[in-house]
């Protein structure tokens, strides 16, 4: 009896293995190690001379899947009609039609590659609808064939390699559309074009320097989920080779700053000093620091580098875990010495998650009016404030003219506008009252009064300003 049970279990296991082998056939002569290496280092695929299509993309033996055999390949005219139908279905929001036409185009990988072939040869330029459908079909193909549970053919990596290799022959603006679609294609939560594609993207950029800025867009998600020193050398090589391409610098520097900040933060600051005349490059460097350097070092570095306009960088930094403490510490250090008001202003701009009383404290004590205004703007942007906050704003505005702790009329309008947008109830009513006071004050400059009226308009009745004249202009 026991022997029989073992025998039945073996038969069952063999049957399961047989089914699995049939479901996931391995190319002849390909070991798992070789397959993994190939996956890490994509290379150009062979072209099948009989079809002019990449054979490797079709699967182990260049054969389509059984479902493809059930239906003959699409004729050229059918292919075009399906592409147009995809574009029409997408534009019209007809999801079932979109799915049906994409299935027809992607069921047989030879049809999908034929779409690529048509796009590469510019054969669709005269047919705008088919052109849009082709870009959409290829993006869908890259996404479908690279889903984690896709068993192929085609092999997802091989298909994506084909598409990438064809990019230099695709004309603008469909090139940019296709690049954008591929860069953003996802399998679950992960970008399909991940770190394992870095070498391929660099190879493309090197081979086609005239298209390097476009191909750089493919790097957008390459460094996503970068861990440890993975890919370190390749990013270092990218940084050394591409010191003028903002996207390449941003991606490589971000990766290097997260893995070896002590080595690359000084380099980043030096690069920034040299890039001052190139806003795009300078921004790429500060964004890399904000997103990837350790928060304390990032706060200190950005405080040193800022010219008072890096709001995105400080917002990015402020949203990172532990950054609030780093921003506070850096602000306190500068405030204690009365140094660098611009840096203090920017550090405060990153404190969106800070408590209201802390921001009110800064607004009440910082010696620089720009920093005080920033504290009130940070405290009121996109978050509800209490009446105490509004009282502080009105009080500071009431002290205008006192350089130690006042708030200008233009500043008060900006803060009150933020409060109107984000704070319902009593605070909103108080903000309206303050803005009406400013709008009606003939002692103020006309520009501030007009700004107050502009902020109030969505929140008051149409006849509120009936008969008002400011600077000789009747308010309508």
């Amino acid at each position, binding site marked *: 009896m026991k022997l029989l049970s073992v025998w039945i279990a073996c038969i069952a296991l063999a049957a399961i293995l047989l089914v699995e082998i049939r479901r996931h056939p391995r190319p002849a002569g390909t070991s798992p190690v070789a397959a993994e290496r190939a996956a890490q280092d994509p290379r150009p695929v062979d072209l099948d001379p009989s079809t002019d299509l990449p054979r490797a993309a079709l699967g182990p033996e260049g054969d389509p899947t059984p479902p493809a055999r059930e239906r003959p390949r699409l004729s050229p005219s059918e292919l075009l009609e399906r592409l147009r139908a995809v574009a029409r279905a997408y534009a019209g*929001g*007809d*999801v079932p039609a*979109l*799915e049906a036409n994409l*299935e027809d185009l992607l069921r047989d990988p030879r049809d999908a590659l034929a779409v690529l072939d048509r796009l590469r040869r510019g054969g669709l330029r005269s047919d705008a609808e088919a052109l849009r459908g082709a870009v959409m079909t290829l993006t869908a193909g890259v996404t479908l064939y690279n889903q984690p549970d896709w068993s192929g053919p085609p092999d997802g990596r091989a298909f994506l390699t084909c598409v990438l290799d064809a990019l230099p022959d695709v004309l603008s603006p469909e090139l940019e559309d296709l690049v954008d*679609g591929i860069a953003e294609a996802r399998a679950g939560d992960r970008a399909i074009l991940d770190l394992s594609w870095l070498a391929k993207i660099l190879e493309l950029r090197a081979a086609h320097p005239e298209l390097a800025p476009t191909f750089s867009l493919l790097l957008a998600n390459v460094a996503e989920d970068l861990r440890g020193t993975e890919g370190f050398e390749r990013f270092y090589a990218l940084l050394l080779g591409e010191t003028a391409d903002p996207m390449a610098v941003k991606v490589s520097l971000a990766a290097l700053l997260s893995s070896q900040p002590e080595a690359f933060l000084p380099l980043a600051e030096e690069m920034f000093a040299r890039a001052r005349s190139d806003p795009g490059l300078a921004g790429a460097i500060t964004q890399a620091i904000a997103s990837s350097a350790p928060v304390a070092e990032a706060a200190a570095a950005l405080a040193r580098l800022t010219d008072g306009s890096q709001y*995105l960088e400080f917002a990015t930094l402020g949203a990172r875990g532990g950054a609030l403490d780093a921003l506070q510490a850096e602000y306190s250090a500068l405030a204690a010495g009365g140094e660098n008001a611009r840096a203090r202003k920017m550090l405060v701009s990153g404190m969106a998650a800070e408590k209201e009383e802390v921001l009110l404290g800064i607004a009440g004590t910082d010696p620089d009016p720009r920093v005080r205004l920033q504290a009130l703007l940070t405290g009121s942007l996109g978050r509800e404030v209490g009446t105490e906050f509004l009282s502080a704003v009105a009080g500071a505005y009431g002290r205008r003219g006192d350089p130690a702790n006042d708030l200008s009329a233009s500043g008060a309008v900006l803060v009150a506008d933020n409060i109107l947008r984000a704070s319902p109830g009593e605070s909103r009513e108080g903000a309206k009252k303050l803005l009406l006071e400013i709008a009606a004050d003939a002692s103020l400059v006309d520009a501030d009064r007009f700004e107050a009226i502009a902020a109030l308009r969505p929140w008051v009745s149409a006849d509120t300003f009936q008969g008002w004249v400011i600077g000789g202009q009747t308010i309508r």
Partner: protein
Amino acid sequence: MKTVLFISIAAVLALAGLCPAQETCPNTKASQVPARIQDSGPFKRCSVGIAILGHQFGIGGGRCPMLRLITPAHQECRGNVNIGTRCVYEQTLAVRQQRCGCMWTTVIGTDGTGIIEGECVCVDAGTAGTVEDASTETCH
């Protein structure tokens, strides 16, 4: 005569001491900084959710940031040389923040289901901060 000369010189020196020395002209001008629109992630894609050959994923649609910052064109003092002028800061301009999200449109297909996610829509959230705006004035 010597006394008169001495008094005259003393008067000139006294006046020189009393009057502030004329400010030297820095010979600088304001530099134009173009307007800037910056997007911040995490980014979403306002894509159409589809199911093909048993696999569900999204395609198409615009890339959608979490927030967008709009910095107006302005002028800054960056030390650019211009004889006879100085760069001075004269006002502040607002840096606006927009919050963005995908605007969903539900479309009922022939089989009674089907959801399409349309465009990325950004709405003004208020003022994130200010930038200083400079101008060039003649030295007197």
